Structures are given as structure tokens and as C-alpha cells.
């Protein structure tokens, strides 16, 4: 094997740093799923009756559904009765301030690079941290309150703003939408809630950090973001999990609602544990993310950098209902070892003069399979709808695969669509060229991959872009000029 190939392999085989476990006493429900479990979750969260009723209905629907099998994914059947659906760090009472949060938890987030103490925070990012099933701390609450922004855990919002929850919960992703969405609706334990009132530009980036810690538990969180007329918010989501030999299930739902002239920018850096080289362990990530541009000139933009998980099943989508609304999807999906990623987006054009952009960059290495699946649907009456799709695949090494499945459905003759797709390999020529200029093969691969992802990285908020590039083992491009 050539030296450069060896270097590529080293790069691929980097160890997973967030793979540690935090030793905490937890309140964990025994494995299994039935009506009692759902009642127990609802009771532990002291939920109002409407929530329990909603969960139970979702559970009933779930029982009649089956796992989707159309994705290009191959995994052992999940035994839903072997999973615990609730695990929370034990506290006598809910913490009222950060000082009451278990220092071990704070330590965990520190190790992950998420200091929760406000004074330690980089200016301008408010964090909600979700540890296993519950939200442990939301920083910068007061400053946000002054601006009229509500940013809190989902469980808190159920109590403090039940009217908003009742109005919007499930209005973008109804429990009946798909198998995992129904499961989530039945058993979700926490998540984040954001409400940006009319005319408010959220004064800082909002951020949630998801951490799976306990063994044999699933994580089912729900995020709901509502942006009223002329408001603006940028939201960041990060995720990690310990290294464990068994697979763990993560089935989240994210709903975004943008009203007239509102803009929501949602960025994810997903680095769940991806399993070892042989494909042992790792997170099964089945996520439903959808944004509804409900108002005129609304804009929803998804940016994701997916490097982790054993299985990724995820299609952040936009419903472009309001006239002149805009949907964007920028994605980098990296898969190596035995990772499998089936990811993409859906853009549903309903309103007039709606516009969508899809930029997808898939990188496969090792024996990984990377699939892009994208649907662009132009409904009758969506006059002058526009879509631009570009999906590029980069292969590193001879044993990986890349697949592209575009689905296009046009019911409106004035629509205009453009689609471009490329598949490339990091060529010996490129590597040799970089080495001949003095770069090590490893730096050369990083640089080439980084260049390939540039269109997406530049959509990420600065801090996140740095994290994303570090994740790919890349030093920051563009630091000159």
C-alpha cells in the first residue's frame, strides 16, 4: 500500500474523543414500551392532560406502523422492547439555577467543550444542554427574556407556555408522519423550545447540545422553533455520545415554523459515536426535521455537518407554503469505517415564486456507504418555483460507495429546476501535487476534503465552522486573504 494511502487511513482512523462515560446516579425506566411507560414518562414530567392524550394517540398510531425500509441502509432489526425510554440524572428537585446542577454534569460538558457557566461562555451563544432524556441547563435566560425571546427546555415550555405548545406541536411533523416521528411523539422526554416574537432579531446564537450518556437508553428529543413575523434566529445543534459496543437509538423530531418575513437558520454538527472499524456499536440516528415557511417571504435554512452515527436516516426538509418563501439545505455527510448515511432533503413548493437551493457534499471512506436522497416537489399553482440542486460525492479509497437518488415531481409548468451531480476521487495527482509543494499527505487530504466542503462550511456560523473543520481534521481554510 502506498504511503499516501496509509496516511489517508490514519486520518480516517482517528479516535473518537467524546467517547467517555459520566458516572451519575440516574432515574431510569426499565426497558420496554407500553402504555404504562408513556404514562410514567408523562407523570415524571408532571405534564398537563393534553400532553398525555397526545402521546397516547401517537403511541396507538405507532403500533399500526412499521419501520421504513426504502433507505439504502442495512442494520439489524431494532428491538423496541429492549430500550429504556427514560433516563434522567437523579436530582431531588429540578435545578433552579446552574449552581444547583450536578458538578459532574457541568464537568462533562466542559470536557466536551461546552462550558455552561455563563461567564465562561463565548459572548453571544446561549446553550440548552440535553443530557440523556432531560434538559439540564439553559444559559443566558435573562438576557433573552429582555428581548422577548423564549428559549427553554421543552418540558418547561409545556408548563409556562401551554398555549403555544398546543398551537404548534405536531403542526409540521404530525405523529402520523412516519414510524420514528410517531415513536418520538409517544415517548419524547425533553428538548428545546424557542419562540421569537414579532419583529425581534434574536440577540445571540441559540444552541443546544445533546449528549447520550446512559447505556441501553434511547434519546428522543423534540425541538420546536417558532419565528413570528419579521423575526430572525440562528440555532445551532451539536451531539455526542460515549463509545459503547451496543447500538443506541436516537430518534429526534425538529419542527420549525417561520411566519411572514421570518428567517430561521438551523445548523447541526452531528458527531454521535459512529461505532468501531468493524461496525460494532454506534448511534442509530433516525431523525425527522422539517421546517414550514408558513408566511410570505419566510426563509428556512438547514446546514448540517454529519460525521458521526453508525446509521444516519435524516432528511431536513422545507415546506414552502408562503409566497416568495425560500428553503435552503447545505449538507456535508462524512462516513467511514462501516458507517451508513442515507441523508438528503425534501423541498415542497406550494406558494408562488418560491425558491429552494440544495447543496449536498457526501464523503465516503473506508467501507462506508453514503447516499443522497433528495425530493423536489412543485405543486400545481406554485408559479415560477425555482430549485437548484447540486450533489457531489467524494470517495477516499476503493472500498466505499456513494449513491444519489434525486426524486423530482413537477406539477407546475412555470417551474424551473437545475440539477448537477458529480462524483470524484481524491486523485493520486492531487495528492502528489500537494506533497510536491511540501505538504504531508495527511494535510493534503485534509486540504482537499476541506476544499470540497467549502460551499457548505461557509454557511455555518464561524464558531461552528471551526468545529466542523476540526472534526474533519482540517485546519481552517481561508485564514489568509
Amino acid at each position, binding site marked *: 500500500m502506498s504511503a499516501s494511502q496509509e496516511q489517508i487511513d490514519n486520518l480516517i482512523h482517528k479516535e473518537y474523543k467524546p467517547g467517555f462515560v459520566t458516572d451519575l446516579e440516574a432515574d431510569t425506566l426499565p426497558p420496554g414500551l407500553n402504555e404504562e411507560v408513556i404514562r410514567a414518562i408523562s407523570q415524571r414530567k408532571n405534564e398537563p392532560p393534553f400532553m398525555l392524550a397526545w402521546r397516547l394517540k401517537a403511541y396507538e398510531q405507532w403500533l399500526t406502523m412499521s419501520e421504513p425500509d426504502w433507505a439504502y441502509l442495512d442494520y439489524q432489526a431494532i428491538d423496541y422492547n429492549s430500550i429504556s425510554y427514560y433516563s434522567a440524572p437523579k436530582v431531588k428537585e429540578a435545578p433552579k439555577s446552574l449552581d444547583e446542577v450536578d458538578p459532574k454534569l457541568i464537568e462533562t460538558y466542559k470536557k466536551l467543550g461546552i462550558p455552561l457557566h455563563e461567564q465562561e461562555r463565548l459572548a453571544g451563544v446561549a446553550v440548552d444542554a440535553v443530557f440523556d432524556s432531560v434538559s439540564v441547563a439553559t444559559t443566558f435566560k435573562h438576557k433573552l427574556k429582555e428581548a422577548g425571546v423564549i428559549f427553554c427546555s421543552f418540558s418547561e415550555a409545556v408548563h409556562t407556555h401551554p398555549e403555544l405548545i398546543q398551537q404548534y406541536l405536531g403542526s409540521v411533523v404530525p405523529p402520523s408522519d412516519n414510524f420514528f416521528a410517531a415513536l418520538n411523539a409517544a415517548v419524547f422526554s425533553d428538548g428545546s423550545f424557542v419562540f421569537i416574537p414579532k419583529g425581534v432579531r434574536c440577540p445571540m446564537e441559540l444552541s443546544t447540545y445533546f449528549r447520550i450518556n446512559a447505556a441501553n437508553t434511547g434519546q428522543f428529543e423534540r425541538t420546536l422553533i417558532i419565528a413570528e413575523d419579521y423575526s430572525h434566529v440562528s440555532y445551532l445543534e451539536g451531539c455526542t455520545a460515549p463509545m459503547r459496543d451496543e447500538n443506541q437509538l436516537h430518534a429526534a423530531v425538529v419542527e420549525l415554523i417561520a411566519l411572514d418575513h421570518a428567517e430561521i437558520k438551523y445548523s447541526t454538527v452531528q458527531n454521535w459515536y459512529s461505532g468501531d472499524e468493524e461496525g460494532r456499536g454506534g448511534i442509530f440516528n433516525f431523525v425527522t426535521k422539517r421546517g414550514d415557511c408558513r408566511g410570505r417571504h419566510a426563509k428556512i435554512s438547514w446546514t448540517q455537518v454529519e460525521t458521526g452515527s453508525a446509521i444516519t436516516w435524516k432528511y431536513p426538509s422545507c415546506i414552502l407554503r408562503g409566497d416568495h418563501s425560500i428553503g435552503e439545505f447545505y449538507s456535508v455527510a462524512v462516513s467511514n469505517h462501516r458507517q451508513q448515511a442515507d441523508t438528503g432533503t425534501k423541498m415542497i413548493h406550494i406558494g408562488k415564486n418560491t425558491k429552494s437551493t440544495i447543496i449536498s457534499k457526501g464523503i465516503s471512506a473506508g467501507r462506508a456507504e453514503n447516499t443522497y436522497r433528495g425530493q423536489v416537489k412543485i405543486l400545481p399553482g406554485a408559479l415560477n418555483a425555482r430549485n437548484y440542486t447540486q450533489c457531489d460525492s467524494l470517495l477516499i479509497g476503493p472500498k466505499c460507495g456513494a449513491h444519489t437518488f434525486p426524486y423530482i415531481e413537477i406539477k407546475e409548468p412555470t417551474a424551473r429546476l437545475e440539477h448537477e451531480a458529480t462524483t470524484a476521487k481524491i486523485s493520486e495527482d492531487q495528492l502528489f*501535487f500537494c506533497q*510536491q509543494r*511540501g*505538504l504531508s499527505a495527511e494535510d493534503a487530504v485534509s*486540504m*482537499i476534503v476541506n476544499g*470540497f466542503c467549502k460551499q457548505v462550511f461557509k454557511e455555518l456560523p464561524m464558531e461552528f465552522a471551526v468545529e466542523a473543520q476540526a472534526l474533519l481534521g482540517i485546519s481552517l481554510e481561508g*485564514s489568509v486573504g
Partner: protein
Amino acid sequence: MLSIQHLEARAGEQAILNGISLEIKPGEVHAIMGPNGSGKSTLSNILAGREGYEVTHGSVTYEGKDLLVMKPEERAREGIFLAFQYPVEIPGVSNIYLLKAALNAIRKHHGQTEVDAMDFLQLVKSKIKSLNLDEQFLYRGVNEGFSGGEKKRNEILQMAILEPRLCILDETDSGLDIDALKIVADGVNALRSPTRSFIMVTHYQRLLSYIKPDVVHVLAQGRIVKSGGPELALELEARGYGWIDASLNH
């Protein structure tokens, strides 16, 4: 500076170099000419450390060190520069980023600190001007969408920034228009110094009228079949390679 002794090399089953010996002293300019497929690029590649060739015989010594055991990036950091016959594109990686990364890798190797961002920008801007390239080339992807001639000039830009000690130019003149040829030649001449040597692979005498070589070699079938002064290039231009083959057969 460089000493090649009886070098034989193959790619797979194909023998390409069949015993090349060449001595290059500091400050010298050697031109290598020869028909298509005679092994000029192969020789350049082997000197730069490209994989895919097997050296079956002979040795190469560069500044007293065994060149053939060094990794390509080590050779580059030690001052060997290859201007490619066909420069590759690296989409999304800006030219200036590559230049800075390369320069810093070389500086680091020599125990120097990273280049100051402002100094670097100034350096690059002055060089790019002398090569008559637009500043926007710095911010475009490496060779991405460059014309053939622009790619070649970009190679010379890199050479000017990295200041190597042994420059190997593989047909840098091919595909250049007359003005560009003059600019590239000026760029090379500006780099000539008593401590820097050049190997220039070319098919045309024209380049050599701008950059005067000390020695001209003719490569045929993996061997140097004739060496001489600059007048040899003129003779080749006039008579082609046939007469050398004929004189060989005597």
C-alpha cells in the same frame, strides 16, 4: 548539487529509463529535449518522488543525500520543485491558501516560524504582478478553471514564492502564447542565481533563446544520447531528432 548515476527505472513491466547519468552543479541550467515518450517526464517525476515507478538500478544524490529514500514532501522541503507538465485542479482550495500552507511547511522544516500574514500577502502580490496574473487568481481554487497558460504561470508563481534550490520545469513552455512565454522566461531568469539550478524539459528552442542553458541533453528511449551547448538545441530545431538516431546507429 545533483548527481544521477546510471539510473534505470520501470513502471510495471515497462522499462522507461535505461541508464541515465547526469551531473548538475549549483547555478547551472540544463535543458532536456527529446521525442515524445522518451522518458523526460518520468525522470522529472522520479526526481520529485512520485509513486508508481521502480528504480531498478543506479542512484541519485542531492546535496550529498540519497534522494531516492526521501518522501516527496521531504524532497520539496529540501528545495526540489517540480513545475508540472499538466498541473492538477484542486477545487475549493484557494490558491493563496495552498501557497501559504506550502511555504509554512517548508519554513517549519527549516526551523523557521510561520510567515507573517501581511508580509506574505505583500510578497505574493509583488510576484503575481511580475507574472502578469490578476490578483483574483489568488482567491480562486487552485488551477480551477484556469486556462492552460494560466496554469503554467501559476506553477511559476509557486516556484517564485517557495524559492527552491533545484527547479525542474516539465514543458512549462508548452501551451504558452508568445507574450506569456516571455513573462515565464523573465520569471525564471529572475530566479537564476549561483546557488539555484534548473532542469528544463522542453520541445522547443524558443524557450532556450530566452533562458540560456549551460548544457542541452537529448533523451531518447530512456538514455541521454547526446549532450552539448546551446547550439545543440538550434541544430535539433533545424534537423529534428532523426540525425541523432542515425548517428547512434553507426
